[in-house]
């Protein structure tokens, strides 16, 4: 059996793939958080709950409407984005001029309410969601077995993250967004409807979380706690990447997924804490994060 650093290649690459998949979810969620923080100045603690809602909308659509995985990839983000925009218009918009703490407390409360409602309705045990038949099975790559669905998750996440990065960094709409992040008053005085842009950005950010939720449904169980399990790690990713940094959240998401995977291979006891250790080191050396302004 082939080994690398004394580890069988199957085990090593298997864990790296798991790390990459976790990293894909970290990247998608932290990207949405970075977008929202950048423009709205809100630390969106309800992001995990909205990710969980994305998975549940897919599960409910399958079980009650007969809508399969592919339609759910479109329907779930639309439903969650609509709810997100309603939250933004009715609640968050009142907090923009206040300290970050108010936004954090409101969204934390919202996360508890949303999670509590789903726990009340569906219990704490997870609901199964099958891999779509087009993506069932796997490929033997020689050095490891690659389940097709997991490969798809990584590819889909990369397309979404890079597409979002391109839209923000290379298009006129992205220029409006970056400018409004710096000086929304002046951008509005140029004739751009900034409040509508803020609402749509929040909708897009939570839609990304919902897509991540649908992608996660066949990998993990669809459970009310799936968001809260993940969100603390995702916040650590955002802090390490640099609050509000788009590329920072994408690169850091994937890298920390891989770091976590490698730690599982070489020192499993530290796997659940390694990201926080990295966060402490980065904050000590570069308080603004790896890609943050002033880094």
């Amino acid at each position, binding site marked *: 059996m082939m080994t690398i650093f004394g580890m069988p290649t199957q085990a090593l690459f298997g864990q790296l793939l798991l790390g990459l998949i976790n990293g894909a979810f970290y990247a998608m969620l932290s990207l949405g958080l970075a977008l929202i923080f950048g423009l709205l100045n809100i630390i969106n603690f309800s992001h995990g709950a909205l990710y969980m809602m994305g998975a549940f909308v897919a599960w409910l659509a399958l079980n009650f409407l007969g809508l399969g995985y592919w339609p759910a990839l479109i329907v779930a983000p639309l439903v969650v984005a609509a709810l997100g925009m309603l939250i933004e218009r009715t609640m968050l918009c009142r907090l923009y001029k206040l300290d970050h703490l108010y936004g954090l407390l409101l969204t934390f409360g919202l996360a508890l309410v949303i999670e509590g409602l789903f726990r009340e309705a569906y219990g704490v045990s997870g609901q199964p969601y099958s891999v779509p038949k087009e993506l069932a099975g796997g490929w033997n790559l020689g050095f490891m077995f690659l389940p097709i669905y997991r490969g798809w998750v990584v590819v889909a996440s990369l397309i979404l993250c890079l597409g979002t990065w391109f839209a923000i960094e290379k298009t*006129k709409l992205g*220029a*409006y967004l*970056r*400018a409004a*992040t*710096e*000086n929304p*008053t*002046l*951008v*509005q*005085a*140029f*004739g*751009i*409807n*900034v409040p509508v842009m803020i609402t749509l950005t929040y909708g897009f950010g939570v839609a990304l979380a919902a897509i991540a939720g649908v992608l996660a449904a066949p990998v993990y169980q669809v459970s009310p706690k799936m968001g809260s399990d993940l969100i603390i790690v995702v916040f650590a990713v955002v802090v390490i990447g640099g609050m509000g940094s788009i590329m920072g959240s994408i690169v850091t998401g994937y890298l920390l997924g891989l770091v976590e995977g490698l730690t599982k291979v070489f020192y499993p006891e530290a796997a659940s804490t390694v990201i926080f250790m990295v966060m402490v080191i980065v904050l000590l050396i570069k308080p603004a994060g790896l890609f943050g302004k002033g880094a």
Partner: protein
Amino acid sequence: MAEPDILLSVKDLHAHYGESHVLHGMTFEVPRGEVVTLLGRNGVGKTTTMRSIMGIVGKRAGSVRYHGTETIGLSSNRIARLGLAYCPEERGIFSSLTVKENMVLPPIIKPGGLPLEEVYELFPRLLERGSSQGTKLSGGEQQMLAIARILRTGADMLLLDEPTEGLAPVIVQHIGDIIRTLRQRGFTILLVEQNFHFAATVADRHYVVEHGKVIDMIPNQALTTNMDKLKTYLGV
């Protein structure tokens, strides 16, 4: 003699920042095609007047009519789309955007703005520095960028807030040339200035502002005969 075509009419304008009452009934008019300045000492409400016209102060009351349309209840984006373009005192260059991106950021609100090529003819340095980060430009270049980017929007009226502040004399002279060129091209300009020597070289009339309201209007051709009065107003 025919009545002048009034493009902007401000009547009894009051503005507040929080508890602070800054404008106390500003009243003045800007005829179409003229360059009009608001002169006054620091802190008398000139910048607040600009911001109130654009709808970006917290609370305002009174009347601001542009092309006959009352704007006092409108949001700033709707005011801009009536044909007003604003160049703020702090220039407002975006650090996350390149010079080119800053240049094309304000949307075209209606036809009639200067084509980008003509804007670059007026400000050739901005073409050379197109890929630089906006805030890496010198102070004078940033001021030119702040003016240049609002010329292509189709706005008829430009609000320029202290465009010469802190700039070298040669740059001030260039900005003066640009303002005269823009006037010839048909733009109406409302200019906030503390430097009345500069204002005298570009403006058609001057409104003197004190304690948040206009206390006098001096046509530019009468400036020499009113110089002592103006110096008293400005405390120079």
